[in-house]
């Protein structure tokens, strides 16, 4: 008896693959958009590490008011959108300069005990030093605590990064920014008032 022949292989029609492709693209775009939007409400890893170090060392519980992150892409879209708008030269210089910015605001609920600022100061230093940042300014005065960090390496006018923490006894603000300072410097040094002050300085 002859064995029955194998049924012919069925290949899915090409248009089904095209259909899946057409459906997948908007889905992927949605996912990318969702991730992009979500990232606007999430601080970068360095800022997050600083925040976590400060909160943990303070010994008290904090509430988050806001956390916003605008990266190069978001600001690029804003720059493109405002390119035709009438802006002050100062505002335009700032917009051209800033390449990324993020801010986090945290507050102490009423009745919370005063946090240990010296411990916060030390913890901030430890965290940021481990991540390659140098503290440029540190001020502890009354209820206020201010620290300013900049990267230890790869600092230039084209690529400037800065991370600032300000605590006033009840509210803590973390701001981190990346900028290309060239447009700002060009604007600043062309101002008559600043030029006069600079001339005065060179006379000393």
């Amino acid at each position, binding site marked *: 008896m002859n064995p029955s022949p194998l049924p012919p292989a069925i290949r899915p029609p090409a248009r089904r693959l095209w259909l899946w492709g057409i459906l997948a693209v908007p889905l992927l775009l949605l996912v990318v958009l969702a991730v992009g939007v979500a990232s606007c409400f999430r601080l970068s890893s360095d800022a997050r590490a600083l925040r976590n170090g400060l909160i943990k060392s303070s010994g008290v519980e904090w509430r988050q008011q806001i956390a916003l992150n605008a990266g190069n892409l978001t600001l690029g879209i804003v720059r493109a959108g405002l390119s035709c708008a009438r802006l002050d030269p100062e505002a335009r210089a700032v917009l051209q300069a800033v390449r990324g910015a993020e801010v986090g605001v945290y507050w102490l609920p009423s009745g919370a005990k005063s946090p240990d600022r010296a411990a916060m100061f030390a913890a901030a230093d430890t965290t940021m030093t481990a991540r390659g940042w*140098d*503290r*440029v300014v*540190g001020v*502890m005065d009354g209820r206020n605590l201010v620290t300013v960090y900049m990267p230890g390496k790869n600092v*230039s*006018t084209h690529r400037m990064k800065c991370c600032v923490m300000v605590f006033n006894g009840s509210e803590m603000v973390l701001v981190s920014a990346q900028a290309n300072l060239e447009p700002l410097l060009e604007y600043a*040094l062309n101002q008559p008032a600043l030029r006069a002050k*600079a001339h005065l300085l060179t006379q*000393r």
Partner: protein
Amino acid sequence: MKQMIHYSLAVAVIAAGINLNALADSPPGQVDFGKIAPARGGEFVEIQVKSNLLSLAAQSVEKQQPDVAKLLRSVQLVHVNVIGLTDENRAEMEKRVRQIRHDLDAQGWEQNVTVQQKDGQDIGVYTKTRNGEALAGLVITVFDPKKEAVLINIVGDIRPEQIAALGEKLDIKPLKEVGAALKDAAPKK
């Protein structure tokens, strides 16, 4: 086994080389004031501007203010500590400042200026030269028992009379104040 020993030796030699390099990197005019913790309830300010930022500042003003750019390029580090004095830390800070001055003397720093002001403020200015010619660094210690202790270390070729200008350019208030105090205390020509 032999390979392990050779490998360990190689690692040790490289590590030693890196350490030596690190030591060599510390310029002669730099002074370590030690770890100064802020006192509870007292003011504390620390400013540390390193050569990367100073170069950046010099670069940004090169065209418009070449003299200022030259001053900034001659400096490699500006380190300022302002420690508010309270009953808790006054004695310790006085001892610390005295120890720093003693260490500077022992390390061959030259005491150029000593100013005792009427309000009890005590200012000391120390300089270190490199090969007997250019300045390698500058240290200023200020002790005001009623208010604060100020420690300043500037690494680079800078004269005491240029401190006010440097403070002005970098907008560092303690530097401006000390510079002004030194100017007032300098003998009038």
